[in-house]
């Protein structure tokens, strides 16, 4: 909790601490009548309840209470050491009065502005973009704003092909033989299967070698595949030769 929100219940004032500050500074409550000790006690009680010490809030409270103490001490004690001629009660009142009158002027003006605002905010204004025809330069009024060179440069950049990445340090570790073996095993165990379902989590190189193995098997009539739509699932199934191979295998068994 911020010190400003500290709830006070004093003889001359009840409410949050920051409101007390405000009314004291506006001289609506005389600081002479405010018991600062009670405020400190209230704050200590609050700290005890809260259980832990919020350093920021505590600092804020110290600064506020210190400035109140200073104000109050000035109010109660004559201050000859400042060397300024002491204001008589009448002069002090004059100075204070001038300040209060000035404040009242703007408090009344504020009331007037608040009335204007209450009336004005009932009107709603239109917030809409201009129609497109007004948002672009008109042909007659248009003059050169860009260089054609910019277009040529943009096109030139698009024509650039980046150099092939240097892959000499990567040694392929995917064996075509091994992929062929896996595919043959899958076809004999499952009959047909979805390519992505089985190989989607493999890296690109493995997928590519697997596809290459599939091509090889297709060429030999061991496998065929179907893709009903672009980018759709690829269904792999045994080829005609595979059927005979399997049946011959069955016969061998």
């Amino acid at each position: 909790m911020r010190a400003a929100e500290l709830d006070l219940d004093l003889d001359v004032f009840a409410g949050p601490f920051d409101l007390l500050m405000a009314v004291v500074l506006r001289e609506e409550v005389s600081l002479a009548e405010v018991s600062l000790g009670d405020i400190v006690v209230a704050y200590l009680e609050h700290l005890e309840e809260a259980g832990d010490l919020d350093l920021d809030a505590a600092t804020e409270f110290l600064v506020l209470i210190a400035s109140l103490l200073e104000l109050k001490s000035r109010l109660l004690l004559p201050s000859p050491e400042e060397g300024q001629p002491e204001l008589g009660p009448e002069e002090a009142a004059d100075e204070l009065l001038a300040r209060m009158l000035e404040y009242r002027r703007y408090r009344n003006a504020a009331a007037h502005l608040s009335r204007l605002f209450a009336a004005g905010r009932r009107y709603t204004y239109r917030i809409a973009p201009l129609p497109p025809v007004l948002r672009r330069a008109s042909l007659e009024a248009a003059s050169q704003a860009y260089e054609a060179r910019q277009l040529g440069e943009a096109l030139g950049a698009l024509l650039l092909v980046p150099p092939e990445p240097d892959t000499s340090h990567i040694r392929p570790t995917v064996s075509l033989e091994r992929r062929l073996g896996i595919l043959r095993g899958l076809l004999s165990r499952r009959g047909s299967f979805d390519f992505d379902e089985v190989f989607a989590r493999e890296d690109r190189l493995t997928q590519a070698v697997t596809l290459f193995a599939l091509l090889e098997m297709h060429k030999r009539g061991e496998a065929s595949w179907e893709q009903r739509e672009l980018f759709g699932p690829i269904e792999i199934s045994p080829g005609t030769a595979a059927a005979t191979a399997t049946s011959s295998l069955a016969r061998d068994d």
Partner: protein
Amino acid sequence: MTELERIVEALLFLSPEPVSTAELAVACEASEAEVDRALDALEGVLADGNRGVVLRRVAGGHTLAADPVAEDAARRLLSRPRTPPLTQAQAESLAIVAYLQPVSRPEIARIRGVSSESAVATLTERGLIEESGRSRFGAVVYRTTALFEKLFGLSGLDELPEASRFDPSPEDERELRQRLLKAGEQRAS
């Protein structure tokens, strides 16, 4: 409606900000006097209570606004939040800026007797005041904006009443003085 009146209405409809008579005259290729007559005619057609749209003379120009009769329906349709009213601190700070501009925050705080940091920050955020440079002592000074005039229905700052009109009456002043003197005597005793 004459063609000029129609064009003026269309321009006010399209323009997001209030438009001055001079700007309208240039756009319409007409004299300011002709534009003024067209504006008067338009104001008659759109007089309060006639239509859903009214002509407002604000912020040094002319603009169209939806009549308050549509206030609630507009909020339902556009789901724009209701403009929050001004707090006392904001209204006081705004009044000080409006009358004393350019004015610094310490000056606002001196007159109000309390720090006015958050009120000034909120008024700036709401676009009602803006920074307009620095004082001799390096403090940022503030002035009101065109949006302030638009939202408060002022055609210009000169439409604000004289500040002296808001001074307390001589009787109030006498009474204040009496109260202060009495308090001073108590303190002295």
